[in-house]
């Protein structure tokens, strides 16, 4: 008996090409799971106009022009544009906004015959680590519905954990793919900055944002990543293929910044699981080496200066005039104030004000200028460590999934959950979160994840080491 909830992309592809299943049967079975699990509030919308897409995908399979992703039902984070569909970024500001063009990644996937079955819930404009900042209600963690799925791409992680999609896309600015992947027990990849085009992604912090896949296995994540990466002239930071210094090196040496990993606020059970997993990696032939990266400690502070600065300028475009939420005031200035005051949620308003502060005259040098300089130091230190080790490993998150409402009143506590993930975005390197086991809490099995970090453009190393951990955890 086929368990649709555990079906991987590779398995589904084999069923489709061997004609044991039609695209329609596959998509209907997955959409049924999506409908049965609607109490999670992971999908903001399940599309009901996919009949033609299904037919086209089936034709590709029948005439032998299919790829690994043809006919595969995937879910899309609500900040990635699909022409004609609403892309609200889970904000009241864009509640009615319909995309006038396809994101680069959407076009890539649709061209391969992917069936996008719905758009997933997220923290508003990708700002948050729990999906509780959505204007359309929080998403629940399928492993324990009293807990958050992580965020900001919480919906995209939850649909996979619930078996309500075979893969999904998210965006990662400070951990928004890897952290929810860890909380929901799935694989999440943040690719190298510039590998996947940001064209058609609702911008949050442009020097940090990157689109990436969620999947049930590392192999599936690799399949989606390969499909969406590529050079795009529409994104000026997209790196031309010839300039991507990939490496075929087999990773053997794993560096661990133990001083940083054993820092304050890290759950002892997370640490135990992490160290046990490293022991098993050693048995599998990997060398584990302690590395010193003192500048990592500044990662979070740098991030919470650069990110809000970029947020405040990127979100200046929402003026209530050209598109988006409009609230009528007495004059044009009032229109701006009211449209933005009501259209943006609390966390978004907070970050806009914070960004305005760190960029304002008199504070710019002390905050933004300084953060840019420390970013360079982090980049340099990391590059130096990568001359000694192939991969860096940390836990993905300092704790397992926390309770809904636990951190909503304390933004700084929420930010601290990003401690292990933000240095990756600051330096632009790729990283993957791979499930590493569970902890038992109040009768629930809560997933944990390990984050592997590689040098720029070395995603291949991440897939290799990720598959090794996956094998170890399963056996």
């Amino acid at each position, binding site marked *: 008996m086929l368990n649709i909830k555990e079906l991987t992309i590779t398995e589904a592809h084999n069923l489709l090409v061997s004609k044991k299943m039609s695209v329609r049967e596959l998509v209907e079975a997955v959409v049924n799971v999506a409908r049965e699990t609607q109490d999670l509030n992971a999908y903001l919308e399940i599309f009901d106009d996919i009949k033609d897409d299904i037919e086209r995908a089936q034709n590709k399979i029948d005439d032998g022009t299919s790829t690994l992703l043809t006919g595969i039902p995937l879910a899309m984070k609500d900040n990635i544009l699909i022409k004609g569909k609403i892309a609200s970024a889970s904000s009241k500001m864009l509640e009615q906004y319909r995309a*006038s063009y396809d994101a680069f990644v959407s076009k890539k996937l649709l061209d391969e015959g992917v069936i996008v079955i719905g758009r997933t819930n997220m923290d508003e404009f990708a700002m948050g680590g729990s999906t509780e900042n959505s204007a359309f209600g929080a998403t629940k963690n399928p492993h324990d519905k009293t807990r958050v799925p992580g965020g900001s791409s919480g919906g995209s992680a939850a649909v996979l954990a619930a078996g309500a999609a075979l893969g999904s896309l998210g965006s990662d600015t400070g951990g928004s793919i890897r952290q929810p992947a860890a909380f929901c027990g799935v694989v999440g990849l943040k690719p190298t900055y510039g590998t996947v085009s940001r064209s058609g992604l609702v911008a949050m912090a442009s020097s940090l944002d990157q689109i990436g896949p969620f999947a049930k296995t590392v192999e599936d994540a690799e399949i989606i990543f390969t499909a969406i990466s590529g050079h795009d002239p529409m994104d000026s930071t997209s790196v031309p293929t010839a300039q991507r210094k990939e490496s075929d090196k087999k990773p053997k040496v794993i560096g661990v910044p133990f001083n940083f990993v054993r820092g304050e606020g890290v759950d002892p059970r997370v640490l135990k699981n992490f160290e046990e997993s490293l022991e098993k990696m050693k048995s599998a032939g990997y060398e584990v080496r302690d590395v010193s990266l003192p500048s990592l400690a500044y990662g979070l*502070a740098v991030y919470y200066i650069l990110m809000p600065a970029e947020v405040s300028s990127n979100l200046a475009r929402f003026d209530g005039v050209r598109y988006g939420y409009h609230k009528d005031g007495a004059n044009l200035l009032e229109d701006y104030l009211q449209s*933005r005051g009501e259209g943006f949620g609390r966390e978004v308003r907070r970050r*806009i004000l914070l960004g305005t502060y760190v960029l304002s005259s008199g504070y710019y040098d002390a905050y933004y200028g300084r953060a840019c300089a420390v970013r360079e*130091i982090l980049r340099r230190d990391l590059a130096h460590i990568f001359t000694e080790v192939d991969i860096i490993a940390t836990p993905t998150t300092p704790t397992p999934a926390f309770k809904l409402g636990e951190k909503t009143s304390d933004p700084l506590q929420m930010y601290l959950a990003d401690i292990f993930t933000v240095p990756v975005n600051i330096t632009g390197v790729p990283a993957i979160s791979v499930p590493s086991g569970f902890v038992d809490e109040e009768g629930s099995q809560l997933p944990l994840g390990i984050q592997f970090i590689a040098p720029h453009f070395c995603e291949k190393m991440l897939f290799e080491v990720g598959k090794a951990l996956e094998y170890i955890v399963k056996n």
Partner: protein
Amino acid sequence: MSIEIKDVEHLASLARVAVSDNEKNDLKNDLEEILSFVSQVKEATVDSLTPEIGTHYNVMRADENPHEAGIFSEDLLSSAPSRNENHIVVKKIL
């Protein structure tokens, strides 16, 4: 790090975001707490650092082969909260 209510009001007006009176106090506290946390960047040793800027190359496309005029207008105008035929309507500025 001390933030006053009037600072919050000033930032909100610069950012064109209306904030309610009860939110101002929360924002004041949040901003104080977050700014005091991020101020640790001031302690980092920034030695004679020359930012390593990679090779620059032109990422702008040539300004040529324009698309046919008006083909995107309806799609874009249809998103505007207020329009008059092919114009977006805004309140008087001057």
